């Protein structure tokens, strides 16, 4: 004989589970094209969600994964119920720990559709651990450099840097992957850890660098975000991926340059994860 208490418990659980399922299903559909600058401490991680039509989960592209596991909590907060534990594309702009460290744990916990990098190899133990995870889980790898392009519906990604010359002659930071994203009328520029050298090369090549959103280069280092570069990009919104650090990031001179250019500046250490909805 089933007790009255068991029946009451079962009914409450079933009703609760039913409501939860509807909440998850409806919440997952309610996605928009957006860029999230994730709060991962001292490091970079940007999540791009692209609506894939009525009733389907969004496309998720993660540029950089921060230094460590903090990115896992940041992804939870950003994606909410739309977190299907699948990321379509992860991109490493720069094989420095504060850009790829979190990908090791992401690879262990998420299914990943494609891994994109510039092909730059790092000899550190951590990078070897990432390569092992990618290989063990059979994640496809793609190398992208200057001139390459990806498209999904009305969103385009143009890779502006690096090219072979920069990779062979410049340091790790200057050889970061620089990507311009165009989604409808919005443009966002992701600059990795580039400094003055790469910025000047981009300026010299006369690329259309004008962007509404700028991922400020190298966490706001005083060796990046030159005045000419910022004046060319003219960002409406600039975001610095930064946490507690001993490098003086972001440099006051960089913040001043951005403000003089009329850009609204956000920092992940003070503002937390910054979400920008595209096409608005």
């Amino acid at each position: 004989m089933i007790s009255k208490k068991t029946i009451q418990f079962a009914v409450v659980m079933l009703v609760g589970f039913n409501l939860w399922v509807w909440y998850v299903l409806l919440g997952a559909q309610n996605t928009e094209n957006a860029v999230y600058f994730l709060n991962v401490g001292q490091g970079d991680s940007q999540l791009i969600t692209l609506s894939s039509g009525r009733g389907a989960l969004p496309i998720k592209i993660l540029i950089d994964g921060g230094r460590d596991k903090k990115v896992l909590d940041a992804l939870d907060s950003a994606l909410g119920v739309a977190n299907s534990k699948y990321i379509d594309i992860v991109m490493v702009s720069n094989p420095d720990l504060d850009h790829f460290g979190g990908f090791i744990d992401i690879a262990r916990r998420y299914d990943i559709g494609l891994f994109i990098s510039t092909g730059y190899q790092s000899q550190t133990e951590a990078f070897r651990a990432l390569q092992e995870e990618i290989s063990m889980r059979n994640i496809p790898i793609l190398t992208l450099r200057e001139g390459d392009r990806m498209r999904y519906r009305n969103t385009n990604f143009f890779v502006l840097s690096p090219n072979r010359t920069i990779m062979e002659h410049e340091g790790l930071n200057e050889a970061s992957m620089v990507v311009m994203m165009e989604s409808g009328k919005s443009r966002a520029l992701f600059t990795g850890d580039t400094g003055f050298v790469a910025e000047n090369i981009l300026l010299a090549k006369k690329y259309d660098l004008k962007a509404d959103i700028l991922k400020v280069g190298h966490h706001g280092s005083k060796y990046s975000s030159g005045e000419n570069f910022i004046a060319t990009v003219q960002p409406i919104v600039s975001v610095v991926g930064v946490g507690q650090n001993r490098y003086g990031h972001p440099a006051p001179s960089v913040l001043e340059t951005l403000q003089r250019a009329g850009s609204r500046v956000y920092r992940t250490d003070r503002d937390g994860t910054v979400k920008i909805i595209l096409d608005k």
Partner: protein
Amino acid sequence: MQWHNIFFFAVSGFILGAVSGGLGLSSAAALIFVMVALGAVFFLRMYLCTSGTVVYHTAISIIVLFFLAGNVYYSVDDYIYYAKRTALEGATYFEGIVIDEPQRRNGNQTAKIRIASSQNNQIDNARALLYVSPYPELSYGDVVQITGDIALPPSGSYGDYLAKERIHATMYYPAIRVMGNSANPFFSTLYKIRLHMNDVISRRFTQRQATLLSGILFGDRGEFSKEFLDKLSISGTLHVTALSGFNIAIIVFFAFAVFSVLFFGKRLAVFGATFLMVTFFVAMTGFTVSALRAAMMACIAGLADQMGRLYNPRNAIAFAAAAITFANPKAPVFDLGFQLSFAATLSIIYFAPVLRRRPFFKAASFLSWRDALAITIAAQLGVVPITITSFQNFSFSALPANIAILAIMPLLMVLGFTTVAASFVFTPLSILLSKPTAFLLDYSAGVVEVFYRLRVPFNPDVGVVAAIAYYALLIYFCARHSPHEKFFMK
């Protein structure tokens, strides 16, 4: 005097002796105290003895003799600990072996090493706690060479904690070289199973759900964010993510139910299989003190349930406490988990029945919430001086929070374990089971969030005298109003 009473007084004396050692009473002082006490008993027996008081004199004699034994046992253990610690002083090179699975946190990993030798001398069984870079990842059984500066445990609460954990030294970011692996095959297999379970949990659930479930199933809090830990602590629900007697009791009951079906109710087979399963589970945690304590408390509860009532819970609890004290005499004073666990269990066994006699708790209620409230109040009142003194985190919102969470905890644990177990057999079933588990995890996280926001803190200064007075009052109240007064006093 009956044997069970002799046993109780003996283990109580032993535990009190170990406690006195932990609080700083030297063996010489303990000996003087015991001699005075025995002299007083002898005097009373000679000159003031009546037939009714003989039993008390015998009880006091047993207690004080075992008090001395406990104190001496603590002192010997302490001497050995400090001898090993001193032997490590100044050494900068070690060879050793990683003795359990390293904890991987943001920015580093911590590994416990059993040191085999240093450049100075052979050190038998000394242990060091290493904080090292997250990569390369160390594993259980790795044989390592370590070069770096050693830091001996500091005085104060952190030093006491390390001493309780039998850690003789710490090292921060030393140079480390892995020479090979000589893991015990039995433990290596258990740790691999545990890693696979963690892997399943982290892939099936979001990070927030996965960390909560790992805490509930294995007491693993390594990946909790500080913010979430604070919320659990202030809402009074942190204990559900510890390997508590409550959690293991659920495993015991579940295993018992499953094995009862599998073995057609053959009592011996069912008991044996359940015991084996709990042993494997505790081994999977590396036979940590907290897991052993929880398993013992769970077995007490399990026996109580299976036998209808526990003939003598007082002795069962005393036995568990004595066994842990024997294994680690520093536990009663320096292991907060030990104190919380025993205070809560004693309160649930003795104080909850007193509350249940009140008309308010006797009345029928939806999902028996009044009964759950009685148990929650008993557990909370049993530990409140300890939590206020140690954490300053008591909030009245802990009462409804615990009722709301503990109601679903058995179902959540069963679903969590079956989700993991199904992954060994049929992955789609595991995915299917993960959905209701995720619902219960989201519900639990929601409860924590709500009662963290609705917190009503109450954390006055509690001195030692006030705490003793509080517990004396609680014991008196239980003795006075217990439904089994005679049994309680016996």
